[in-house]
C-alpha cells in the first residue's frame, strides 16, 4: 500500500503543478509593465486600463450577464417542472423526455452550435442576443433537469401522497411541498446554469449575431486578433471572480441544506 500511495501522491502533486502553473504565469504577467512578453517591471497599468478604458469588454460582459441570468432562469423553471414530472408522474412521452434531456449532454458542443445555427437560419430568425439566449437555455436545461431530479430521487412518492391525503390540491402540493423540498437542487441547477452560460464559447460562437458579443467571444477575438495584456488582467479578475462566486454559492448551498 505504501508504495502505491506514494506513486499516486507523486502523480497528484505533478497534476496540481500542471493545472496551476499556467494560471500563476497569467497572474505574474498581468503585473508586467511591458506590452510584449518579456518582464520589464511591476505595474498595475493593465488593471487600470481594464477598469477604465475597455468599453467593448464591459459591453461584452454585460451581454454575458444578461444571457446567463435570463437563460438560467428560464432553464431552471422549465427543467424543474420536467424533473418533477419525470420523477413523480406518469405521462406519455416520459421515456422520450428522459432521452432528450440526456442526449444534449453527450453531444459535443459544436454539434449543438452548428445545428442551432442551421435551424435559426432555416426558420429565418436573425442571429442576435436572443438566439444566444435560446441556445443557452437548450444546453442548460438538461443540467438543471438532472440536478433537480437527483434531489427529488431522495424522496419517496409517499410525501406527495401525504400532501394529497392532508387535503392539498395538485397546485398546492407543487408549491408547498415539491418546490420547497427540491430547492437545494433548484438553486444548484440555477447556479450551474449561470456558470455554464458565462463559460460557454463554442455554442455561442455559432449562434451569435452582430453586436451580441459575450465575454468569452471578446476574449476569443482578443486572442485571435492581437493580444493586449489587458487580457491578462481580465483573466486574473475572472479567476478571482469565479473563485469568489463559487465559494460563496457553495457556502450558501451548505447553509440552505443545513437550514
Amino acid at each position, binding site marked *: 500500500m505504501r508504495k502505491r500511495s506514494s506513486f499516486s501522491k507523486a502523480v497528484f502533486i505533478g497534476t496540481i503543478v500542471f493545472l496551476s502553473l499556467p494560471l500563476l504565469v497569467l497572474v505574474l504577467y498581468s503585473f508586467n509593465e511591458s506590452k510584449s512578453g518579456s518582464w520589464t517591471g511591476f505595474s498595475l497599468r493593465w488593471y487600470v486600463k481594464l477598469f477604465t478604458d475597455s468599453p467593448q469588454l464591459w459591453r461584452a460582459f454585460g451581454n454575458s450577464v444578461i444571457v446567463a441570468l435570463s437563460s438560467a432562469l428560464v432553464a431552471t423553471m422549465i427543467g424543474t417542472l420536467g424533473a418533477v414530472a419525470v420523477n413523480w408522474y406518469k405521462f406519455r412521452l416520459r421515456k422520450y423526455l428522459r432521452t432528450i434531456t440526456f442526449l444534449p449532454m453527450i453531444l459535443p458542443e459544436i454539434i449543438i452550435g452548428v445545428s442551432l445555427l442551421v435551424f435559426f437560419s432555416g426558420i429565418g430568425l436573425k442571429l442576435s442576443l436572443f438566439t444566444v439566449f435560446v441556445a443557452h437555455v437548450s444546453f442548460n436545461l438538461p443540467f438543471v433537469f438532472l440536478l433537480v431530479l437527483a434531489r427529488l430521487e431522495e424522496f*419517496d412518492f*409517499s410525501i406527495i*401522497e*401525504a*400532501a*394529497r*391525503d392532508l387535503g392539498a390540491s395538485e397546485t398546492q402540493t407543487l408549491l*408547498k*411541498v415539491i418546490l*420547497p423540498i427540491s430547492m437545494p437542487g433548484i438553486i444548484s441547477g440555477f447556479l450551474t446554469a449561470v456558470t455554464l452560460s458565462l463559460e460557454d464559447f463554442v455554442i455561442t460562437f455559432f449562434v451569435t449575431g452582430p453586436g451580441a458579443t459575450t465575454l468569452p467571444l471578446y476574449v476569443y477575438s482578443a486572442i485571435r486578433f492581437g493580444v493586449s495584456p489587458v487580457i491578462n488582467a481580465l483573466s486574473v479578475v475572472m479567476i478571482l471572480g469565479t473563485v469568489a462566486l463559487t465559494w460563496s454559492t457553495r457556502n450558501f448551498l451548505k447553509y440552505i441544506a443545513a437550514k
Partner: protein
Amino acid sequence: MEYGGAKQKTVKGSDVVIEHVRKSFGDFKALDDVSIGIKKGEFFSLLGPSGCGKTTLLRILAGFESPESGAVLLDGRDVLSLPPDGRHVNTVFQNYALFPHLSVFENVAFSMRLKKAPESEIRAKVADYLQLVELQAHAKKKPSQLSGGQKQRVAIARALINEPSVLLLDEPLSALDAKLRQHMLIELDSIHDKIGITFIYVTHDQQEALSVSDRIAVMNAGEVLQIGTPQEIYEAPATDFVAKFIGETNLYEADVVSVSGETVELSVEGFGIIKVTATEPPPVGSRVSWTIRPEKIRIGLEEPRSSRNGINAVSGVVDEPIYSGFQSKFYVRTPSGQVLKVIKQHADWSDEGPEIAWKDSVWLSFSAEDAYLVEVKR
C-alpha cells in the same frame, strides 16, 4: 380537547365495509374478491406477508389506488369516487413521509393551513395534538433532528389533526427497532383509546397485530383467509397458512377415524390416535390437517396420568433443546420420526420437575381442547 381527555373510551369513527374488491397490476392479482366489515371505533389489523395485498387494500381505502371492481363504504356511503382528501380518512405512512422543509409544528399544522384556519385556532389545535403524542417540547425542530419514534409520532399527530373518522396506518413501526416498537405499540393503543376512531393497521408482524388489535384479517396472495379476534386467529386458525403464519405451531395431516360432538379422533402417522376439537366436524375418512401450539404441550419424563378425558400422550426423544432465558424450546422426535416443537416456560421455585436435557426420553401430553382441526383436505 377534541379527543375528550377523560378516561372513558369514546366510540367515534366510521364503519368501513369493503365489498368484493379486486385489483391487479398487470398479470399480478393484488386483491382477489376481498370483503371485510370493520366496525366503528375498532382497532382492526390487516396482517399478512409482503405482497399479500394488504398495502394495496389500505391504499384503496386512502384513495391512492382504485380497484377494478367492488365497493368501499364509509358509514354506508360509497367513497371510491372521492379523492384522498374527501374521505375523512387519513394515513400514517410507512416511512413517515414528513415534509423535511417544515418544522414539527408546521408539519402538524399543514392541513389546517391549507384550509386557511385562523392562526389562533391552529396554535391551539396543533398544541393539543402535539400533547397527545407528547412532542410539545420538539415543536420547533425539523424532522431530520428527530428520532424514528418521534418522527412516527409527528406523522400520527399530523394525520389525526384533520379529525378523520378512520386512521390508516401502513406498517408504521417497521422502521423502528424492536424495543421502541413495543413502546410505540402501547402508545398507539392508548391513542386509539383516547381518540376512539377506527384504526386500520397494516402489518406483517403477527406479534404487533396480536397485541393491539380488536380484530385481525389475515391475508395471503390477495385473499382474506380469516377474520377474527387475536384469540380466534391464534388458537383456531382457519387454514394451514394462518396456523403457520401466526406464532409457532405444530401442523400435521391426519385421517378422521371417529367423531363425537366437537371432538374428533384422528389417526396421525407416527403418533397413533389423537383427539382434537373441530367446530364443524368432517365425516369419518376425511383427510385433514390439525394443529397444536408448542406452549400447550406439557413435557415430562414420566408417562402422564391420563385420568382426565381427552388428554393425548406421545412419547419421544429430545432432539434439540434450545434455551432462551425465560423459556426453553424442545424439538422432540417420536419413534417414527415425526418432530414436535414444545415450549416450556421456566417456572418459579414451586416447579419441581427435573431438568430435561438432550437425548432424554420424554412424554408429551396435550388436551384435545387445545388441538384444533384446521383444514379438510378431502
